[in-house]
């Protein structure tokens, strides 16, 4: 074996030399790209809308709107970060947001707000737990498992609501506390919890190991199933939180709530710097990604871009984010 090998790593590298890095341009810029792409994307979006629509985009009021819009993306994105970090994906979060919003608001209407909150959170948790169970025990790829849950949860939202929509009174967290709406503090609270879970606990470390190399996780005795069930449960729970926040912000829960939200959330997580190939990333990255995504929606709305065109733009952004971040040599074969 002569020269740098593109596939191997440790095979011929024991001559005191560092392992042969495939010296492609993309490979060399990646460590920097992971830090600078999210920041540049953030600055770029900000500057573009700032220049095009300074009068309406660059106001404090609009800043607060962007922040509270990003809250749902953030909260659900935190949960999603664990799943993507571990190399999986959860496509069901949009539907779970809708289902929890509806169950939360209907129970809340009949039995009071605390019961509604509890019911919503439990619904999210149950959906996530089911995802984790199906994924780990039946060994179905997370992509298909959660695609199934996407349809099931959406259908359940229609069945439960029977086409009705529930009026939701705003939760007190939407009042402003100091400069920011209260929802920002709620988001920061969940950020703290998720950051702690990912970086300080064995569970978080094992998500990283599974995403880094699942085979190593098996060989070193990581309890795969437990970690997988836990991480999907967490993601479902956070989708539950997101559902309650969204229903409360919008003022109504309908079964059409949050259609396609999963793609915005995946974009936010990936744009922030947690590649779909897993193993790297962090929850604070997701905040940046969520801010970019909500700034994008907000700016496009302000500029009067039609919603169908917005969809197209967001699709392109998702592809772009994945293109820039994917570690292709890690998965080897792209299917």
């Amino acid at each position, binding site marked *: 074996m002569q020269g740098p090998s593109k596939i191997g790593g*440790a*095979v*011929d*590298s*024991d*001559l*005191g*030399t*560092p*392992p042969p890095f495939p010296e492609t341009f993309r490979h060399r810029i990646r460590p920097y790209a992971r830090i600078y792409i999210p920041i540049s994307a953030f600055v770029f979006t900000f500057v573009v809308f700032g220049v095009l629509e300074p009068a309406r985009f660059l106001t404090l009021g609009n800043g607060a709107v962007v922040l509270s819009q990003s809250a749902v993306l953030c909260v659900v994105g935190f949960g999603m970060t664990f799943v993507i970090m571990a190399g999986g994906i959860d496509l069901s979060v949009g539907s779970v947001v809708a289902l929890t919003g509806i169950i939360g608001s209907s129970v809340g209407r009949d039995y009071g707000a605390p019961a509604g909150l509890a019911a919503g959170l439990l619904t999210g948790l149950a959906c996530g737990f089911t995802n984790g169970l199906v994924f780990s025990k039946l060994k179905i790829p997370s992509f298909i498992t959660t695609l199934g849950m996407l349809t099931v949860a959406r259908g359940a939202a229609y069945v439960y609501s029977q086409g009705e929509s529930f009026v939701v009174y705003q939760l007190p967290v939407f009042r402003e506390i100091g400069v920011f709406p209260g929802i920002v503090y709620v988001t920061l609270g969940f950020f703290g919890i998720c950051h*702690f879970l990912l970086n*300080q*606990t*064995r569970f978080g*470390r094992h998500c*990283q*190991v599974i995403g*880094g*190399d699942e*085979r*190593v*996780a*098996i*060989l*070193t*005795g*990581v*309890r795969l199933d437990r970690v997988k069930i836990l991480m999907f449960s967490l993601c479902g729970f956070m989708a539950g939180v997101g559902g309650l926040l969204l229903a409360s912000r919008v003022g109504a829960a309908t079964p059409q709530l949050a259609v396609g939200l999963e793609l915005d959330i995946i974009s936010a997580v990936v744009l922030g710097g947690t590649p779909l190939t897993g*193993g*790297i990333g962090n929850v604070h990255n997701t905040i940046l990604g969520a801010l970019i995504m909500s700034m994008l929606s907000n700016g496009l709305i302000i500029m009067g871009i039609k919603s169908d065109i917005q969809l197209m733009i967001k699709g392109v952004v998702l592809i772009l984010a994945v293109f820039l971040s994917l570690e292709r040599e890690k998965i080897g074969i792209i299917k």
Partner: protein
Amino acid sequence: MSTLAEDSKTLGAGAAAPLVRMRGISKAFGAVQALRRVDLEVWPAEVVGLVGDNAAGKSTLMKILYGIYTPDEGEILVESKAVVFHTAHDARAHGIEMVYQDLALVDNLDIAANVFVGRELTRRFLGVVEILDKRRMERAAGQVVQTLDPDLGPVRRKVRILSGGQRQTVAIARSLCFEPKVVIMDEPTASLSLEKIHRLLELIQRLKARGLAIILISHRVEDIFTVGDRVVVLKRGEVVGGRHIRDTSVEEVAQLMVAGSPQRAMRAEGVHGTRG
């Protein structure tokens, strides 16, 4: 360390039971019979070489001992107690560690994290939550790594940037961190330079002096003759011979690998049952 080494030596020599006894292990993958009624014993302070052609069943046997596969038949006794391993976690809890040929490291994590992967040290936070004790892991990993390779550098470096030999040091450090009784090494010399091979064989002797048992899977029969006490030859999933190194030759072992048969192995001697 010398007193400890002497203690374990006498302990090893006087031990009445093997550390590990695998009895009648069979394993099939679909139609392929990977192992057929294989027996293997490992005593304290003993280096056992496991040799055989490709597909002889060496790795499968070791993966069973390490809890990755469960055997279809047969039993495993650790210090005379029957055990059932469902995952590597169970095997590690019984003091059995394995260093894989490809080392099984996570590139994105640092050295300390790789040393403790799967068995992270934790401490209580605010009395209730268990959190990673990163400082203790870094210190412990640093100490073990230091004894193996003083030049490896800080344990917060990502494994991605290490050379092949350094990566192996990290993998070996992982296997030594929890006071193991048995360390399985799968082709540890396969990707090493000659100089590094000597260092590794020295390390194996040091571990043996501390009372550890080492199972060495290797294509390089000469390595097993340098450090081994006993060699077990597998062929097509069956034991075709077991010899004490001092009673055999490289030629005989090579002969067994090529032409050995299970019947001859049983006639050979009571090598499995008793220490010579």
